[in-house]
């Protein structure tokens, strides 16, 4: 992937400014259609979802009181994992987007909701709703692209440290809620500032986050295991809660990776975004910067309808249960304007996203020029790039880029013939 402005063949070169504004008007029309028809059925949907989640969590935690028995452990852990996923994805994430604010119910409102996650609602609303959704896929502005620790684009210069990024990505997946909390606080940036110079705002938010983490940990790793002591289930309950958190973390990480990271999703250059982006231009960036997951009804609910990532990014404040209804209209709009509506099943999207993580952990062109036959030589080259100085690295990179280009040309010729 290369930022859209540096591509030889821009996927939006055929669109006139009028086209872009027309797309904006069409999408506004679709949005209005949903707003005009929001009503009792939608309210019943989210209330039912909240109720189901709470019964499921209560039931699972009750079963886990007897988790010394293996079947109870399995059932309770599975139930709690699903409950945590529903709470974070279909409920928490969407409520905090203000998707249900129109109901004027103070119990289900973006300003009052707190979620079952290490990150505070306040921190999340800033980094996710405000930064990520406004500056979607702009390299250097949208921290969701690699969370500031990964190489997400060919244009980012490769350094040997990136070789470890598949591992970091895996660790980040396992402890995703803490990763998010750290990134909501912009922890990396703030910790580099000397303590006395850090803003009081950062100190306040860091304190809130630590309190939240302490409460979360106390609940999952102290109170509930302690309640299970009478049946001798302290450790099994602790393990079950840890597992449920792990499952939720890996699942939400996978879904989020699928939203913006699979091959084919466009990224944008900071300098190429106009100072005053029009509504149409913003919409277009959301259309190109997101990817959907196709699958069953249950899969959509478990992803919090982020499987409709494109629709979610176009209309982040529309009720999630309506995305599937507008998807065909949005897709038709993509087709009409010759744009690619990226949609694949979950395993393919996850594979694609991970493939990119691995590919970009290596120097540009490495994957393209490596075959089974030349693998040993390639590894030697990579070793030299890792151990060599900057000059060596630059020379080897130049050669590799050239080879990759040549290999691509040969492939094109074969295809043409």
């Amino acid at each position: 992937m290369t930022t859209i402005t540096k591509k030889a063949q821009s996927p939006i070169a055929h669109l006139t400014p009028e086209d872009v504004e027309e797309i904006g008007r069409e999408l506004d029309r679709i949005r209005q259609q949903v707003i005009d028809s929001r009503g009792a059925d939608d309210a019943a949907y989210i209330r039912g979802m909240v109720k189901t989640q709470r019964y499921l969590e209560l039931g699972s935690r009750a079963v886990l009181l007897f988790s010394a028995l293996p079947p109870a452990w399995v059932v309770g852990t599975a139930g709690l994992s699903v409950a945590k996923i529903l709470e974070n994805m279909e409920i928490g994430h969407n409520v905090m987007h203000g998707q249900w604010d129109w109901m004027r119910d103070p119990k289900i409102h973006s300003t009052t909701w707190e979620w079952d996650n290490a990150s505070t609602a306040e921190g999340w609303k800033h980094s996710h709703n405000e930064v990520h959704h406004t500056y979607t896929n702009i390299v250097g502005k949208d921290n969701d692209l690699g969370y500031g620790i990964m190489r997400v684009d060919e244009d980012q210069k490769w350094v040997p440290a990136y070789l470890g990024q598949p591992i970091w990505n895996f660790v980040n997946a396992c402890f995703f809620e803490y990763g998010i909390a750290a990134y909501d606080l912009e922890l990396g940036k703030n910790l580099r500032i000397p303590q006395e110079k850090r803003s009081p705002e950062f100190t306040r938010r860091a304190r809130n986050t630590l309190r939240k983490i302490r409460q979360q940990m106390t609940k999952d790793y102290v109170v509930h295991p302690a309640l299970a002591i009478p049946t001798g289930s302290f450790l099994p309950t602790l393990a079950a809660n840890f597992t449920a958190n792990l499952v939720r973390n890996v699942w939400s990480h996978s879904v989020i990776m699928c939203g913006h990271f699979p091959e084919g999703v466009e990224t944008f250059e900071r300098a190429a975004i106009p100072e005053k982006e029009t509504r149409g231009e913003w919409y277009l960036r959301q259309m190109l910067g997101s990817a959907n997951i196709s699958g069953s009804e249950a899969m959509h609910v478990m992803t919090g309808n982020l499987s409709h990532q494109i629709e979610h990014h176009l209309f982040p404040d529309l009720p999630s249960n309506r995305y599937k209804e507008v998807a065909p209209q949005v897709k038709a709009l993509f087709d009409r304007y010759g744009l690619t509506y990226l949609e694949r099943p979950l395993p393919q999207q996850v594979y694609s996203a991970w493939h990119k993580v691995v590919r970009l952990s290596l120097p540009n062109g490495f994957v393209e020029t490596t075959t089974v036959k030349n693998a040993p030589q390639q590894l030697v080259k990579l070793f030299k790039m890792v151990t060599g100085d900057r000059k060596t690295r630059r020379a080897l990179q130049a050669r590799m880029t050239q080879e990759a280009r040549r290999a691509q040309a040969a492939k094109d010729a074969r295809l043409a013939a």
Partner: protein
Amino acid sequence: MLLTETSDGNRRGRHRSAPALRLRDRAVRLVEAATTPLMPADYLDLFAPLRSGAELRGRIVSVEPETADAATIVIKPGADWAGHVPGQYTRVGIDVDGVRHWRAYSLTHGPRPDGHISITVKAVADGVVSSHLVREARPGTLVHLEQAAGEFVLPTDGGKLLMVTAGSGVTPVVGMLRNLFPVTDSGVVRLPRSEAYDITVVHVAPSEPDSIFLRDLQALDAAGMIRLVPRYDDVHGVLDVEELETIVPDLAARRTLACGPSALLDALEAHHAARGLGLTIEQFRVSRVEAGEGGTVTFTRTGVEVEGDGATPILDAAEEAGVLMPSGCRMGICMGCVLPMKEGSVRDLRNGAITTAVPGETDPAGVKIQTCISAAAGACTLDH
């Protein structure tokens, strides 16, 4: 287990109550630690929404038609309902098409033995809530309540009273009369405490079939408990307050309680003031806010007033004027700028939709609006 110890502590004497309270406190904190980030109440609400300690709610028990477009809604209030005095009203929060609305309604039964309360609602044209309550509300539905309030109550010392009611203004009066003169299968019950009252009711309605509670009033009149003077616009013409002295000859000897539309109440106030007569009034519907283009935005906590035109987001206008505002994406997505509007109207700049907050009708905490995409549509007050 801990809670048992608490009650045990209470039994042993006062010197134990402080540690017992601490224990109870600790037990509550333990349960909170198990349910965080939710509150224990969020789970208890699943099973017992009307329990003591819950937010005040009620469950609709029955919906009984009164006329073609009015109905009495009987509600079982939550355990914390503190009771009411006949004539008082309560504010009811109910979801219509998924949106929470609040309205004030008179309680039309005096305190009842079964503990239920009732409101009587007349469906008015364009009345979102009233039409819903009369035509769509079903038994079993949960509603939100506030404790009874209002100064428009029956004087406790008896005496000669004139009650002037118009339209659904009859509802608080019916609440008072039912309390004074309970009706059973064997007829109206004469209570000793009711003998101190001499009541004349002037009941104004557009026509006879439009009158809610007419049968109740007629029954009381027939039993000699009150004197009823019905006034139908289609038969008698619209009531002129000057006629009151003719239809109620001993007007000067009576204290007047009046409930109805503002035009009638204004006329009565002028009429009674000129003659030095006692008058207590109750008016339900405040006049509607007409959405206009732009207006003054008042911030309650700072007292700052900002002039907003109809095309500028309140956020921008307020910041221009130096108000420190919460803000976020500035395009209506992130909800970082949401503030409660206590009163007034704003227009959504994206689609022109009007949002209105009316004290006494919408959420007491205010209607939350996104300031970055809302422009003033008339004067409005924000809690910030």
